[in-house]
């Protein structure tokens, strides 16, 4: 590792429970996570806020989050701006904070992801979610993220003839890990037979194939080691690799709809920057928006060959004690998927792992973690490598 990137460290983390926050506004959710991260850092004051959010302009009829959220957090006048990359917004906000500190432009930057999804329901929320797809060529045809994932899943079944029941392992592991996460939306175990009996939400996907969209906020305060408050005594977690890659937005413009190039490249580049190989990491916080996402993410990261990602869907492989632990606090599936906040939940959870503060969710001896946040069908992919 060269000195340049080993300097960027995570000094503070904060998160709210993920769920249906009917009584808490967008601004209050964000404030809760931000203030927790500032407190966790020992009172470090960020000079810039990058706010990962996808839906506030449509679901909450609120744009201009930079001003709203700095003001409501007692940071009036600080630099603040929204970073939007569909459900990879949180990962993208973290990357902006990383770049800001790395460049020397600021000493401390805060990335917060916040989403207030449950303000809208039914066809309205479906149409807002579909904004992550290509409006002219995908959502105009009636596609939503879930229906498109369903079509791709159908193609996956056709191309590779996997054992359909094997996919149960993804939600099973996620739910098992969520049981001991106080911030998880569904901290309940899921049995393989529950998966087999689950309500079909489409031709091929069932209820447990898709992560629940939810409300929540998570924040990460990034700084350099030399600006840490005096007396700071937590284990130092460094951001040693960071990459954001885009792909063609529409699935039909890609050479193979089941190969997610941006997902692969973002991990390759983040790992190259970190000087590590994906196989070296102790855990992988992947973007399991659906079991198709889980499968293709594992393939993109190189943990499985093309068409074989589903074979890893076993507790022995991806569980906390497995070869490549994923979704260590429940992942999108069971912790919940607050869209633009999700990437920062991953960063918060990875930091807990690397600090050794993950409690019952601890991956033993975790020193190197990989997190990846995907926007839509991996049209935007953001990967970070974190190291203790």
């Amino acid at each position, binding site marked *: 590792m060269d000195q340049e990137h080993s300097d960027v460290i995570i000094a503070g983390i904060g998160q709210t429970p993920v769920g249906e926050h*009917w*009584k808490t506004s967008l601004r209050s959710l964000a404030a809760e996570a931000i203030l927790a991260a500032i407190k966790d850092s020992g009172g470090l004051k960020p000079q810039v806020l990058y706010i990962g959010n996808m839906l506030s302009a449509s679901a909450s009829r609120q744009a201009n989050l930079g001003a709203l959220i700095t003001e409501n957090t007692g940071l009036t006048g600080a630099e603040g701006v929204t970073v939007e990359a569909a459900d990879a917004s949180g990962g993208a906000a973290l990357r902006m904070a990383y770049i800001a500190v790395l460049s020397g432009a600021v000493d401390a930057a805060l990335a917060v992801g916040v989403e207030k999804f*449950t303000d809208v*329901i*039914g066809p309205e929320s479906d149409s807002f979610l579909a904004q992550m797809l290509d409006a002219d060529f995908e959502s105009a045809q009636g596609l939503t993220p879930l229906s498109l994932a369903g079509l791709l899943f159908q193609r996956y079944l056709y191309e590779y003839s996997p054992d359909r029941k094997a996919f149960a392992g993804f939600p099973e592991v996620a739910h098992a890990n969520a049981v001991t996460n106080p911030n998880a939306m569904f901290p309940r175990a899921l049995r393989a037979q529950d998966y087999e009996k689950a309500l079909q939400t489409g031709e091929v996907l069932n209820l447990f194939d898709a992560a629940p969209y939810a409300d929540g906020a998570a924040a990460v305060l990034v700084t350099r080691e030399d600006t840490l408050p005096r007396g700071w005594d937590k284990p130092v977690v460094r951001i040693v690799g960071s990459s954001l890659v885009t792909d063609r937005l529409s699935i039909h413009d890609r050479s193979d709809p089941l190969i997610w190039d941006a997902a692969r490249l973002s991990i390759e580049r983040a790992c190259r920057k970190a000087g590590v190989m994906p196989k070296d990491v102790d855990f992988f916080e992947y973007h399991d928006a659906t079991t198709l996402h889980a499968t293709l993410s594992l393939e993109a990261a190189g943990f499985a060959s093309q068409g074989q990602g589903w074979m890893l869907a076993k507790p022995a492989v991806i569980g906390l004690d497995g070869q490549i632990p994923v979704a260590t606090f429940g992942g999108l599936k069971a912790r919940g998927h607050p869209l633009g906040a999700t990437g920062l939940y991953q960063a918060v959870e990875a930091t807990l792992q690397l600090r050794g503060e993950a409690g019952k969710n601890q991956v033993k001896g975790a020193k190197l973690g990989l997190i990846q946040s995907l926007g839509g069908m991996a049209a935007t992919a953001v990967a970070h490598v974190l190291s203790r």
Partner: protein
Amino acid sequence: MKDQGIINKPARSVGIVGYGAYIPRYRISGTEISRVWKGEALRGPVKEKAVAGPDEDVITMSIEAARNALARSGINPELLRAVWVGSESHPYAVKPSGTIVAEAIGAPVHIQSGDWEFACKAGTEALVAAMGLVGSQMGDYALVIGMDTAQGKPGDALEYTAACGGAAFIIGPAEEALATIDAQYSFVTDTPDFWRRAYQKYPEHGQRFTGEPAYFNHVKSATSTLMESEGLSPEDFKYAVFHQPNEKFPSRVARQLGFKPEQIKDGLLSPKIGNTYAGAALVGLTAVLDIASPGDRILVTSYGSGAGSDALVLTAKEALLERRSAALSTQDYIARRTEIDYALYARFRGKIAMK
């Protein structure tokens, strides 16, 4: 007058001196509705729901229930000082249902009459007002009715439960009561979980938002505040009746509050008649009064979207035993059923566009 805090107890003690239910005869099953809208007969949130006939509306059904209440009370309708109908399906937007009901049952001209609207708690709201009228000695008897021909948009989740029916009560002095009303408490907030705008035919709802922050928060808050203030706990009640939009919600809220299934089963009618909206908790109470013994304590908590809950503690009295046979029982109405298919249902409920 002494300060009574937030629990409503009128200066003069009051009670129910007459009660009557009305449930129309037609039933449509959940499986029949899902056959039409989902292509297969699936089990719904209730087994079947009561459907008004083509010549019935909130006014005609209110008259039926009011006549039953009068029969049980034994009072001359000339003595009524109020006729109040709570509903979210008043036949007229402007023109009271109450005046038609009053004239049909022989109430005098010197009455208070007006229609009440608070989604599914319009009936209990009218009942609380009647407690005030009788309790202040402005009058001796007031007739209150909760009745609905509830609207559910064809194909919507509400269509499986939105039902027709309700109940009427004559509130009078406690000494004459079949059941005394011992204490009452209401809990109200601005919670937009379900609404219907003017000129709209069908209501809209906030899906899962209608659960925890709406129904459960209000029913639990109203019930537990009343029980705590009165020093009562679930074991002190023989029966409990909760607003019943389906089978699941009242069963769950009862469990959460510490009530046992045997305390709610007799007043839980929604599996057989659906959600009668402003009538739901009240018609459940009539089924309990049909079987209660003197001394039995009864809890009733309604819920109206928008949102609020009225909770009441009642005690059954000796007079109930001889007077309740003066009208058809609620179970008689439930047993009197004619099953119809979706086509007849669509015709009866005016869902076929004729022009």
